[in-house]
Every structure is written in structure tokens, then in C-alpha cells.
């Protein structure tokens, strides 16, 4: 055992950032790099297909979907605010709303894909557009699924009464992830439905 007993400046408060937040931010950095590569590939391959279908022929802008997902960021902020102030009922409500909005987005994407696959006969192996579109949007959808699963766990625990005010920090960390998923959707939306169309 050792005792390093240097007694300096013991009065000053020693503050460091929360490790959960730092970990989430670094994870977001890594995820951003992954998305960047997929976005670059998408942009690079726009218009390079040797045969159709092209984005212009088959893609429709998913307005309703996007509004749902982006507004969910707002509701999760309300939830963060509620739990930070110990208003557990409000927290449960806003958290459930967020979860539902995310779920609507996911279902919307599913409907869109169903139409593309069965009506437009566009699959991941059809052409470059299919490959890049399904992988980029799919990668984002995968992150939505992960987010939804985590939120569902919190929701169930909250409804069972296990989530308390002291968990505000962890909820905030999870919310950070959800904000990231939303921001990525803005990028994906711009690239796929605005630039790519």
C-alpha cells in the first residue's frame, strides 16, 4: 500500500466532467465518422448508375416522417427538463411521446421501403442507388432502433417506478444519443432527398 501524501490546495474543489457524457460524446464522434463515410459514398455515386430506377423516379420526400423524428428531439428535451426537476409524471409522459414519435418514424421508413421493394422493384442489389440508399438510410434506421430499444427499457423501468430524479444524468446521456440520431437524419434527409433527387 502506498500513501502519497502531498497536501496541496486541498480546499479547492476538484471538478471533472461526467464520464457518461464524455463517453457518449466520443461515441458520437466515432459514429459521425462512420456516417461520414456512408454519406460520402452516397454523394460520390449519385448519377453514376448504368440503369434505373433513379432517385427521381421512385423517391418521395418523407415530410411527415421527418417532422415526427425531429419534433421528438423537442419532447425528449422536455423529458430531460422534467426529470431534472423531479417531475416524474411529466417525465413519463414526454418520454413516451418521444418513444412513439420515434416508432412512427421507423414504421414510416418501413412503409417507404415496402413501396420501393415491391412496387418499384428497387433492392439493395439492383443498382448503385439501391446499394447506397438502403445502406445509408438503413444505417440510420439501425441507430433509431437501438435508440428506441434503450428508450423502451427506460420507459418500462419508469412505469415500474424504478427511475428517479437521481437518474437524470443517465437520462441526459441517452437523450444526447437521440439528439445525435436526429441531427444525422437532417444530414441524411438533405443528401438523399434534396441533393440526390
Amino acid at each position, binding site marked *: *500500500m*502506498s*500513501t*502519497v*501524501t*502531498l*497536501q*496541496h*490546495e*486541498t480546499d479547492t474543489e*476538484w471538478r*471533472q*466532467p*461526467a*464520464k457518461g457524457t*464524455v*463517453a457518449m460524446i*466520443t*461515441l458520437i*464522434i*466515432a*459514429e*459521425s*465518422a*462512420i*456516417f*461520414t*463515410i*456512408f454519406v460520402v*459514398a452516397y454523394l*460520390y*455515386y449519385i448519377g*453514376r*448508375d*448504368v440503369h434505373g430506377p433513379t432517385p427521381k423516379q421512385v423517391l418521395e420526400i418523407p415530410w411527415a416522417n421527418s417532422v415526427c423524428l425531429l419534433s421528438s428531439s423537442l419532447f425528449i428535451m422536455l423529458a430531460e427538463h422534467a426529470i431534472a426537476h423531479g417531475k416524474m409524471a411529466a417525465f413519463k409522459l414526454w418520454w413516451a411521446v418521444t418513444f412513439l414519435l420515434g416508432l412512427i418514424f421507423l414504421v414510416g421508413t418501413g412503409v417507404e421501403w415496402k413501396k420501393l421493394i415491391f412496387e418499384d422493384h428497387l433492392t*439493395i*442489389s439492383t*443498382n*448503385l442507388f*439501391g*446499394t*447506397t440508399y438502403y*445502406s445509408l438510410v438503413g*444505417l440510420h434506421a439501425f441507430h433509431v432502433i437501438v435508440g428506441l430499444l434503450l428508450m423502451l427499457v427506460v420507459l418500462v423501468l419508469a412505469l415500474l417506478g424504478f427511475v428517479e430524479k437521481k437518474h437524470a444524468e443517465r437520462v441526459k446521456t441517452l437523450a444526447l444519443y437521440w439528439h445525435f440520431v436526429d441531427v444525422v437524419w437532417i444530414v441524411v434527409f438533405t443528401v438523399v432527398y434534396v441533393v440526390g433527387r
Partner: protein
Amino acid sequence: MGSQTYPVAGGLQTETAPSRHGYLEEIHSWIVTVDHKKLGIMYIVYALLFLVIGGLEAILMRIQLAAPGLHFLEPQTFNRMFTMHGTTMVFLVGMMILFGFGNYLVPLMIGARDMAFPRLNAFSFWMSALAGILLYFSFIGGNGLAGTGTAPDMGWFAYAPLTEKAFSPGHTTDYWTIALLANGIGSIGTSINILATVFCMRTKGMTLMRMPMLPWLYATMSFLTLLAISPLTAAQAMLMIDRYLGGHFFDTQAGGSAILWAHFFWIFGHPEVYVLVLPAFGMASEIIPVFSRKAIFGYPAMVAASVSIGFISLGVWAHHMFTIGLTSYGNAFFTLSTMLVGVPTGIKLFNWLATLWGGKIQYRPPMMFAAAYLIQFLIAGLTGIMLSVSAWDWQLHNSYFVVAHFHYVLVGAIVFMLFSALYYWYPKMTGRMLDEKLAKWHFWLFLIGFHLTFDLMHIPGLLGMPRWIYTYEADRGWGTLNLLISIGGVIQGIAVLIFVYNMVHSYFKGELAGPDPWDAWTLEWATASPPPSYNFATDPVVGSRRPLWDLKHPDDPDSAFE
């Protein structure tokens, strides 16, 4: 040795060998451990195991190339050897051993009890480790050992479209892709962990600018890993989409681009070199001051240089691709950005020299390797500047000159520094010193072997010998040089075996080290060797960059000059 420290009241009594009857529990305790020190040691041992395997692959290749026209290996096997050698050395040796040291040292140096996320740490290790085993399972998968199974054979950077289903049927490419994907998950987990540890777990008084250099460099390295491994993960995912789902990312016949793969791979590949070398910088910055008996020269400049190397290295990847045919803007940009790396690197070299300058240099084994590292790293950097000139690179791209250059970095700088670090921290990890006589044999044999191999390897490159060739004709005049290169390789192999013997021998018979055998100044030497599982019974409080100096010299503490 150790004459300046006074361990009192049984500081050495932690040196009790695990009793024989409990060896099953001992193994179990290693498997379920979340202790950063045990995980660190497992990383290191795992990496050393693969160092020997990867080295064996290199020696097989060198035997094949020792003389013109040999048929020691099958051509197909030769391809598998250089692919597996590269992949093993980068992912299973380099990354693993550096993460091992990071795991072991970073919490100790910043005075923490463990990493920020101990369970994630264990998960990351097992993920990376099992991925390596999956990769090597390819040797016995497929058609069995005789044809070396389905081991990857397309080169460690797996250029498209060779990796597409039409050209690489079977699972050779998939083993490589999937194993690296899984390995990458572990690397990203550990990087996040190191960053969170460095930023959130420092002991009281240890501000960022009081942190030792090593945690600084590990933070930079981890940040770079996040930005480097993630693109690789993305590219691997794309390749898997191509191969499993019939996608067209790199399928040139459907409009896909082979060049895009090259870009994606090198966006990973170049920062990866810095991921490997930055921790070596950190180790040098810890070891050189201790054996010069001086504080590191220009600490803030060293920190700034380290971080800026990290940033610049993100913008140099296409210097691996000059011959692919970039625009002249591209050539100019990547030539200049590559040369720019020389500036912070130069700052670091000069600061190390200034640390040595006027110091009382002690040539103990760690310092011997560190001194060789300084010179070899300089030479490696200089050939790097040569290759950064695109016109020069057009001439020498994919020749043995390039092979010699990057092995000079990877072996001459990084492996030498790793040996130095092993000699330096082995007493901390095991409580016993490594044998110094064997260390000298190891050092001189390895040095001679290294220079025989890699100095000479530049020459066949200049004479036009391309890399990856299975054999060559006698009239090329490369025979003698290649024979000498191969002999050098064998000498290095012998040196490594001496080292392995030394590690095992000293573990049982080595001289007891005591808590602080080198009279060093960072916090890991403030606790017993090996440290108890809780590292520090009382959280240390530091007031300067060299807390142990302050303890040993209360009349002249560093904290007085901050």
C-alpha cells in the same frame, strides 16, 4: 539501482506467488476480471504471442525470398503469409500491445483506481482478442491446413475489385473483413474508455497540464482511433454488403469505384500509423527523462506537437495513392500536408534531444532501446519525407523502398520503443527486474538484425524490386541483398526468442524490483510492484508534473516552479 528509494515496512511483501492448488481459480479470476492491470497484462501477453506468430510468417517469407527462383512456399501460401503478417502485426500486435500498456499505465499515472468503464474494458479486450482467434481460424477453415485453409490472401489493404465476389470466391475475404470489424468494435470501446478515463478520472490536483506525457498521447491516440477505425468499420460494412447482399459499392462492373475503396481504406490506414506511433512517443517521453535524470524539455510544446500530429495526420491519407492518378491539386496538397507532419515531429525529436542534453544519461536496457529509437525514428521520418514528394513516389511506389520505409517506422521506432517500455514497466507489472545481461544480448542482436534487414532493404527497392513478389530471377542482381536481408530477419527472430526467454525466466528468478527501481517520478512508481488491485489505498494528491520528485525532494519541489 534503486538506491535512492527507501521502501520501508514490507513494501516487497506483495511478492507472493499464487499458490499451486488454486491455479484453476487463478485462471478463472483472469477470465472474469475487470481490473485494468490484469486486462492490460492480458493484452500484452496476447500481443506478444501474435508477435511471435507474425514474426514467423515474416521469416517464412524471407526464406522464400532469400535466393532467386526458390519454391520454399506455394505462391498462394506466400500471398496468405504477407496478408496475414500485415494484418496480424497491425491489428493483433500493434493495437493490442499499445492498448495493453494504455490500460495498465493510464489509470496508474493519473492516480485512478481503474478505468472509467471497467466492464466495457473487459468486453473490448475479449472482443478484440476473440476476433484475432476468428481470423486465425481461417487457417484451419475451408480446405484444411495443407493449403492453409481459407486464410486471407489479398494483401492487408484488400484493394477492390479483387475483394469482390467474382474475383475472391469462398470466405477468404470474409474472414479478414469480419475479423477486423469485430476487432474494431473492441478498439473503439477501449478508445472511448481511455478518453473517459483521462478526462474524468484524474486524481486531485492533476490538471490536464500536469498529466504525464503518456496519458496525453494515449488521449490523442484514442481520439485518432475513433476517427480512423470508424471509417474502416464503415468500409468493411460496405464490403460485406457487396459480398453478402449483392451490393455494388466497389463493384466496378456496375459503376462502383475501386478508387473509393482505396480512399476509404487509407483514410483509416494512414491515421492508423499515427495511432501506433503516438503511444510510442508517450513511452519515449516517460523513459528518456528518467534515464537522463532531467525533467522533459518543453512539456507544453510536446503536448501541442502531439495533438497537432493527430490533427495533421487526418489530412494526409492520399499520399498512399499518388500512383492511382490524383489531380495535380491533389498531388500538391497531399505532398505538402505530408511534409507538414515533419514540423511537429521535428519539435518532438528536438525536445527529446534537449532532454538528453546536459543530462546524466544512464544506459540501462530501457534507455538503450530508447536511444536506438531516436536515431531510427529520425531516419524513418526522413525516408517518409522523400516518399511524400509525389514525383519520387511515382518512381518508388510499392517497391521494397516503401517496405523498408514503413518497417523502419514500425520496427525501428515502434517495436524498439515497445521493448524499451517492456524493460521499463516489467518490474512494475511483475515485481521483478528483467535480466540485464540477457537484455544486452537481446538489444545488440536485435539492433544488428534490424539494420541488416531494413537498411539493406532500401537498396533492392531503389533497384526496382516490387513488393509482394513471390520470387525473382537471378539476373536482376537482387540475390545477395535479399540473402543478407533474410539473415537479418533470422537474427531478429533469435533476439526476440532471447527476450521471450528473459521474460519467462525473470518472472520466476528475477531480482526483486521494489516499488520504484528506476527512481522515477510518475505516480505508478508510488505504489507497490505489482500494484494492489486498488492501485492506491489513499487517493494521491499532486501538485506538479512529477509528484514523486516533489516527495523525494521536498526542499526543491517542482510545484514551486509552476
